[in-house]
């Protein structure tokens, strides 16, 4: 282990990451009926049994008085345009449907937004092929001569849509900052692992960071760390799963690189299933990084750690 001075020649900037989360959203009773009935070109609302407020979309609870008792009603597909805003996602609008008390948030989908006016009569525009979602009602369009219609009791309603499949995809560009950038730059270009020393507890920390968390003091010197270490804990992985990087069996391990006080999570590989069963990898085993042919500037530039001979530190 050597102490190094000066700044690295390059600091890697940022890492692209994507969170893609599949959901099965449960609509609940009232919203489920509302979504299902759009396929019949009917708009379902609720009339609160306590305060008599009529709202669309149908809700299990009254947002005004909190009551959960209500009747389902069929609301006319026509109303007055209360407000609208033109955005890059369309013209988002508030429409007070005939006979209701609470405006309905949706879109105005036809015509020039410049022709809209507050209080204008509008009527529903329906999708040709319903999908079982709110956009089965595409939105509203101007209908100056549309008469005012009345709310009706719902009677028989369609089976509620219970579940909606939903995929949330969020993209990020995570900044490495100076410390991670220097680490990954060293790994990529020089196959060099760099840590920092805390001036208070003297521990060497990998990955490097601006502050020692335990002491809450600014870290001091940069330190070159060898690619050898001691296995502190391990678990043999036999099963396959989505996203796995290495075919099983392999060892998932906490490795304390020589001279450091931090634990690096990586894998131990290059071993037969038989060797793993016989317990040839265990806490205290000496290991060394096997560097990949890839140079990505990440910890996956180490394919895995291999077991080497030598006395364990402890």
């Amino acid at each position: 282990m050597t102490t190094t001075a000066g700044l690295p020649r390059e600091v890697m900037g940022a890492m692209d990451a994507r969170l893609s989360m599949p959901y099965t959203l449960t609509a609940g009773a009232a919203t489920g009926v509302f979504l299902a009935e759009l396929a019949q070109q009917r708009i379902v609302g609720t009339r609160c049994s306590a305060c008599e407020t009529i709202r669309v979309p149908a809700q299990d609870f009254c947002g005004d008085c909190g009551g959960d008792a209500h009747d389902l009603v069929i609301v006319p597909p026509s109303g007055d345009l209360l407000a609208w805003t033109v955005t890059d996602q369309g013209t988002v609008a508030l429409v007070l449907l005939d006979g209701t008390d609470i405006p309905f948030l949706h879109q105005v989908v036809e015509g020039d937004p410049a022709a809209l006016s507050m209080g204008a009569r509008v009527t529903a525009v329906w999708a040709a092929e319903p999908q079982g979602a709110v956009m089965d009602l595409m939105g509203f369009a101007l209908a100056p001569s549309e008469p005012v219609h009345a709310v009706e009791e719902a009677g028989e309603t369609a089976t509620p849509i219970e579940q909606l499949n939903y995929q949330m995809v969020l993209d990020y560009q995570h900044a490495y900052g100076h410390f991670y950038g220097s680490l990954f730059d060293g790994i990529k270009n020089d196959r060099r692992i760099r840590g920092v020393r805390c001036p208070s507890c003297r521990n060497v920390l990998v990955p490097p960071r601006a502050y020692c968390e335990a002491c809450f003091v600014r870290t001091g010197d940069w330190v070159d760390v060898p690619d050898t270490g001691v296995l502190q804990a391990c678990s043999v992985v036999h099963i396959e799963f989505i996203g796995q990087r290495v075919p099983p069996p392999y060892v998932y391990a906490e490795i304390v690189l020589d001279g450091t006080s931090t634990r690096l999570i990586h894998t131990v590989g290059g071993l037969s299933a038989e060797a793993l069963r016989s317990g040839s990898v265990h806490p205290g085993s000496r290991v060394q990084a096997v560097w990949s042919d890839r140079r990505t500037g990440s910890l996956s530039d180490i394919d895995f750690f291999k077991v080497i001979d030598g006395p364990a530190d402890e």
Partner: protein
Amino acid sequence: MGTDMKNRAAVVGSAQTEFRGAWSDRQHVDLITQAVSQALLGTGLRMADVDFVIDSGSDFLDGRSISNCGFLGAMGAHHKEESRVEEDGLWSAVYATTKILAGSGSVGLVVAYSKSSESDPRNFWSTLAEPFTQRPVGLDQHSAAGLYAQRYLARYGIDPEALRAVSDRAWAAASDNSWVDAKHAMLADPYWEEFVATPLRRRDMARPVDGAVALVVAAEHVARQVTNRPVWITGMGSAIDQHFLAARDATSFPAAAAAAANAFRMSGASSARDFDVVEVSAGSTVGELMVLEAIGLAEPGRAMDLYAPGSAPGLNASGGSLPADVVMATGLVRLHEVASQLGGRSAHGPTGATTGLAHGAGGIGMQNHCVVTLETS
């Protein structure tokens, strides 16, 4: 000081990083440690003296689940009691103050941060909306602000062009605030004139920035030891409106009024007019006007009067949240600003101020509101 609080709690230190459109060479932890270490400076308090840490941030913005777990060390929370509030940092300050008043600690550290430059913050806002009937029709922070704005301006007969006075004043104030990278001249770029949610242009919308803020709250016996100018927390209140934007009042924020009323009941104030310094948060120019009316600084429809030249010198002297909105932290930034100005630690704000009010907002279309009042003697 109101009669409701037996114990007293004070802000004894606070700090922020510079707020920038993008801190592309810093991680969250780098920004957090910078604010936290500075907040303790000058108090004589060390991290070992901090009893607990309360923090605000968003897993969606941070791009990792329970993101506070990865930031604990940076917040000085190693082996300490720590709680995350998934709301603006002003709610974290209320949580911390409540703990101190309840006697469960003497020194609390409050931290809030975000780096919205690492993702598209519009995704964050739309994830707040109900996913069946609200999110798919295009509800997000911009469209919500546009719908409020159209109705507010129509009701009170205000020309949308008049809103330039609000954004100009905010950005001009930010130009004089060395902690914010916003400069009034930037607004000359045609980018800021684009309509993003009519009648609102981009210059009417809060500009997301990266940054962190930290604040130290202490019980009276500690506060008197570590500073000769404690800034006492005299009142706190919060209130939330309905989730469905369509069901809310069209042109006012009753939840902001209720939050302020709660805080005033504790502090003995009658309206926001009682305070020398007022810092409010808003997602848009019209949102800011509606907050000022809700807390009683102006009559309904009259908040534009506060933007006449020379009016309301104690209002958003920092520039407020329009030029620099640290999402999930902007309300705590307002508290930091008020505490700094009252504590004599700020380069801006009126001289001789002894009372102040900080306001924060959260949720889609500013659904949730929080008010904290402060006083120094």
